[in-house]
């Protein structure tokens, strides 16, 4: 706990403390049950929203907390120690609320943001389709203009919260091929023509339902469009820059929790006549895990600061942070599991859930391969 505090302002330490306390009291005791019974913990998330966690970096005039990306990273890292899956969903919800706050006009902001900040309503981010994951700009869901309406046809895949959430931020094709033909529409649950696929059975992230989102002649008012036609892909990518920091922060929290679990286990478990903590290999391994955790944390916080300040290297840094941190933290959690021996494989012990929950962080919000594409493109582009 101690070293996470260094370099933070007094205020950020307070935010962190609230998030830690909330994670320990309201989330950690239920983490296993939420996973095993696949419960979407609406009441707990609403409690979190009461504290200001529903729209952390959304502006206060529409109910947000108006904090920085760094504040947000610190908060999600702390919350993740209580439950990665639930925190990750909260971060996706935050990303959607921010997109409406930033790219919506005042009517849209006032209509959607207050409910989202309080988590009276929940949001989902809809970009991926069965035929377009990494190649997101090739998406096929169409939105045909008919007077005051767009008629949507197509389907989205792997949508976090899909079917249980109320507000869908949907990237769809209003124009020609490629990114410039894509717009962003806000679709409300209950709109005729909007339906959902079966709930997916996943290895982790089980406290949030994942479903396909299906549009069949689904009519959405033109006034629900964020920004202009053709701006949707840019909006989606800007949302993801922050989303990548958030997901990396969730991985940090998991790794932090696992280093503590591993450490505690080493101090207790005895073999060959002494505690495992006397074993040099395990000491060295623990040191490596802690070192990589600290390095990861520094990279995420730097990326968060760069994004907040609008630095030119922000997009690259966000991609680097997501790439490095999700990989390293998965390894840390995995090694922590190994240190538990056979017990690490039992669901009675939390370490396996952290491993299962953060495995997907290396895949979603842009695979770690796509992160390499973004970084290398930035490096190889002559200015």
């Amino acid at each position, binding site marked *: 706990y*101690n070293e996470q505090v260094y370099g933070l302002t007094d*205020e950020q330490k*307070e935010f962190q403390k609230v998030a830690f306390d909330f994670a320990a009291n309201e989330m950690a005791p239920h983490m296993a049950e939420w996973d095993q019974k696949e419960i979407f913990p609406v009441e707990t998330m609403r409690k979190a929203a009461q504290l200001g966690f529903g729209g*952390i970096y959304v502006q206060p005039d529409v109910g947000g*907390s108006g904090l920085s990306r760094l504040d947000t990273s610190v908060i999600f890292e702390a919350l993740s120690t209580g439950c990665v899956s639930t925190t990750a969903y909260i971060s996706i919800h935050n990303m959607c609320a921010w997109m409406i706050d930033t790219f919506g006009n005042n009517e849209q902001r006032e209509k959607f943001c207050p409910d989202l900040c309080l988590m009276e309503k929940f949001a989902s981010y809809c970009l991926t389709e069965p035929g377009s994951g990494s190649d997101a700009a090739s998406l096929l869901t169409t939105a045909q203009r008919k007077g005051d309406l767009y008629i949507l046809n197509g389907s989205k895949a792997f949508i976090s919260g899909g079917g249980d959430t109320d507000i869908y931020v949907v990237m769809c094709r209003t124009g020609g091929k490629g990114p410039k033909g894509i717009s962003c529409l806000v679709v409300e649950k209950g709109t005729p023509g909007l339906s959902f696929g079966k709930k997916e059975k996943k290895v982790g992230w089980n406290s949030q339902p994942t479903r396909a989102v299906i549009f069949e002649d689904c009519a959405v008012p033109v006034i629900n469009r964020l920004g202009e036609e053709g701006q949707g892909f840019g909006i989606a990518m800007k949302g993801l820059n922050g989303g990548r920091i958030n997901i990396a922060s969730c991985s940090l929290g998991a790794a932090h929790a696992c280093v503590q679990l591993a450490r505690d286990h080493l101090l207790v478990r005895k073999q060959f006549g002494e505690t495992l903590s006397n074993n040099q290999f395990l000491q060295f391994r623990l040191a490596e895990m802690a070192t990589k955790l600290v390095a990861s944390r520094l990279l995420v916080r730097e990326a968060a600061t760069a994004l907040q300040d609008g630095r030119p290297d922000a997009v690259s840094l966000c991609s680097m942070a997501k790439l490095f941190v999700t990989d390293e933290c998965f390894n840390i959690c995995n090694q922590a599991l190994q240190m538990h021996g056979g017990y690490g494989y039992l669901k009675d012990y939390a370490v396996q859930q952290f491993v299962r929950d953060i495995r997907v962080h290396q895949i979603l919000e842009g695979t770690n391969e796509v992160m390499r594409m973004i970084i290398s493109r930035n490096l190889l582009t002559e200015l």
Partner: protein
Amino acid sequence: MHSNRYCNRIIVLPFSVLLEIRVKPDNSGVVTDGVKHSMNPFCEIAVEEAVKLKEKKLIKEVVAVSCGPQQSQETIRTALAMGADRGIHVEVAGKDYETLGPLQVSKIMAALAKKEDAQLIILGKQAIDDDCNQTGQMTAALLDWPQGTFASEVSLDGDKVKVVREIDGGLETIKISTPAVLTADLRLNTPRYATLPNIMKAKKKKIANVKPADLGVDLTSRLEVLKVEEPPQRQAGVKVETVEDLVGKLKETGRI
């Protein structure tokens, strides 16, 4: 006719406690350097009670006071984020802090209570690191104020306070006049989480810095710690086969 006057000011005294106890190698005390501090849980309950009384509009202002080194300011900030209006940090550092005990703190509190014209002082019943359970009582004695300790329920009625106290025999209800000192017990309330907006608002709230000398308080300790030791290591037990053996063993070790 009961007076409509309501309490103006409450002082709460949130203390920070060590989260981890390790005895110093020379047995002179407990390691405090670099150990994480956090607000004493009973003090959190005290702060919560004061804020609730303010929300019920029964009192006007909640002042959070903490005695200690720079770090104590964090404890005050937490109290401000929970809803206290302003803070007072009584600076006590170094050697003075090591010997700071309930007697010194209660002298400070008594001086502040007079200076601030407080009607109520609320503290946690005891600190979980030293378990003294003395500060509240001593403060009341120094001020010659009534005390309601181990409170599990507090209600204000004009210039009287009804306190339900948790005692060994069960619950005792007393009515005392203000100004008074109350100490909070576990079941008094469940402290709220600070919200993000309140944490930010707390930044604008004032924390005044005060030295014990300014209050005319002498911090000299009347106690000298001779030795601090860990409890003896638990020895392995012995298994016996029969009741006769058990009785024999007990006699042997002088237990019976």
